[in-house]
């Protein structure tokens, strides 16, 4: 299993990196489709909402993941690249859901008097997958390219909407110093309101890597939503991953981790909430009615 993981990772590295350096996309992706949610948001500006296409692409990530181990067995990155030409498209309903989430985030930001534009079809991918898989040199190279891309467009502040992008940009600054300000939307939506009681599946990146576990709970608390907690399931050192990050390397392992996590969450309560599109992809097959935070607040 582990040896296969090395080969799959190496394959990912070559394919994804090549695509990114070519046109800022990890896989062949329909940019129009990714930008369709944002009608009415001004193009560019010094402050932008940055989706990194995560909500829109999350279902496609899964489709590519399931291809990778097969391609690794065939030792054929070229074959994988050609499979990529098929251009996976998320289902209509999945896309509509992603659009609704992003529109809601944009509307909550506007309601909180935050100014922002959007890069629409020019929006690049953050490079998160490179750093998460340990491809540091490639991440740094891509980071330089991405940083100058933003600077070239006069972007000074980036408002992120998902943990993978937020984490990637934080890591990027370790290696590629820049003046780019990175702020997550959760810290900006003062006036958001919601109701009900949920079990929160923490994003590992938000809660532990970025140290936001407590501030996120405060943000949620301010909306009127309450959380059901069980120290053994939702504690800082006990809350486990949804399995998604390892899915690209070993889909089987990712799937089993998701099953275990879903069981644990459901033991705390029936209404479960996530804050990440990848967590949603991993857990939704196992948790009926799973919601993203941006689906339960306005």
């Amino acid at each position, binding site marked *: 299993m582990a040896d296969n993981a090395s080969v*799959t990772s190496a394959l990912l590295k070559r394919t994804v990196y090549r695509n990114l350096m070519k046109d800022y996309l990890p896989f062949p992706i329909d940019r129009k489709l990714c930008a369709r949610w944002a009608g009415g948001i001004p193009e560019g500006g010094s402050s932008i909402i940055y989706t990194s296409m995560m909500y829109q692409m999350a279902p496609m990530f899964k489709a590519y993941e399931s291809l990778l181990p097969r391609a690794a067995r065939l030792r054929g990155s070229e074959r994988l690249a050609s499979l990529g030409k098929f251009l996976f498209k998320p289902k209509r309903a999945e896309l509509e859901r992603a659009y609704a989430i992003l529109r809601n985030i944009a509307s909550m930001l506007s309601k909180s008097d935050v100014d922002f534009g959007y890069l629409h079809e020019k929006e690049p991918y953050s490079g998160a997958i490179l*750093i998460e898989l340990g*491809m540091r040199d490639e991440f740094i190279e891509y980071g330089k390219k991405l940083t100058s891309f933003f600077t070239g467009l006069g972007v000074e502040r980036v408002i992120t909407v998902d943990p993978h992008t937020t984490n990637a940009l934080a890591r990027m600054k370790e290696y590629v110093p820049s003046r780019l300000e990175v702020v997550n939307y959760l810290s900006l939506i003062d006036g958001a309101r919601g109701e009900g009681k949920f079990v929160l599946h923490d994003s590992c990146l938000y809660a532990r890597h970025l140290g936001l576990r407590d501030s996120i709970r405060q943000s949620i608390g301010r909306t009127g939503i309450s959380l059901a907690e069980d120290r053994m399931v939702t504690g800082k050192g006990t809350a486990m*991953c949804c399995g998604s990050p390892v899915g690209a390397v070993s889909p089987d392992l990712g799937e089993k981790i998701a099953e275990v996590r879903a069981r644990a969450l459901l033991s705390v309560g029936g209404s479960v909430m996530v804050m990440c599109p990848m967590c949603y992809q991993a857990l939704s097959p196992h948790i009926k009615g799973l919601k993203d935070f941006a689906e339960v607040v306005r």
Partner: protein
Amino acid sequence: MSSEWEEAIERSTRNNVPEVWRMLEEHPYLESTRVELRKAKLRVLDNLDEFIGKTMEAVTKSGGVAHLARDAAEARDIVDRIIGGREHIILSKSNVAYEAGIRQHLRDRGKDVWETDFGEYLLQIAEEEPSHIITVALHMTKEKFGRELHRNLDESINEDSTPAEMAAAVRRFLLGKYDTAEVGITGANAVAADTGSVALVENEGNIRMTSVRPQIHIAVTGIDKIVPTLGDAFKEVMIQAAYAGSYPPTYINVTTGPSSTGDIESQIIRPATGPREFHLVLIDNGRMKAAADRELREALLCIRCGRCYFACPTYRVMGKEWGKPPYSGPTGVMWNAIVRGDSSAAHMCTHSAGCREVCPMDINIPRVLEYIKYTDFKKMEEGGKK
């Protein structure tokens, strides 16, 4: 993922995690102790050569013999030379002895070798590999213990026997072994550079017996276990025990050279009642190289408390299949890279970072594993491997 594994890891997590919380809450001074210990261990890693020299000198001064093995093969040779023609050997659980393949090597040479830790003994008779760095037979349920004992030790024990009945059967067997053993091999939780003392922590009493009953005591451990002073060694055993979930520990053993008495005219006479010879075998096996690497050396701070295992989703699913025993789980995957140069398991890390939250040494395990993945890619490129 077998259902037996699921059952076993679920039960152990439910037992261990709240126990550690309780101990840390009841003994708040452990918090500052662990911070001091990290600092002390970093001091050694900054000057490893010097501390190895100091330790070996102190062991010699205390009447013991210090050995330094570059790798596992050299460690086995040293142990062979010490044991010579002696036949009866007992071992207390030691990951480093396992890493060096000592038990298997001695068995291959026809020696009568027995593990004295209950879990390790069970693994020995069941011919299985350890699944956790402390609770080595964590993958075995009580029922499996019963079946193995029935088959290999005592027919009156079966899967319906109580844990106390099982423990009694193993105890009877081991007590006989202590009587005949000529050599006792232990590991070390910490080695004090200023006194040459070896500190070991345990609950079963087998380490105490193994280090005192036979006339020769060999402690086999890694150079990463060296701490500046005997005071630091006590800190390490305290923290190891607490974060492993057994605080206060039943026994803390300290050995400084062979047994001695000063009762006749205040002259130091060796031996007294305990061992006649004490040997410390320090193993490098990749540790020195790791200490020189700014990112990898964090792993050398590990005190093997095993707490990170219970916070890890990959381990939860894969168990001992993640890594290579005795080094599985989050810390084990780092250790495989250090002692075996095997980085492949690191790619299965899902960077949940629960391990980092619970680690008493504040090791940023996901970051070390990310670095190991990174170096693995580099090796692949250099080797022209896919």
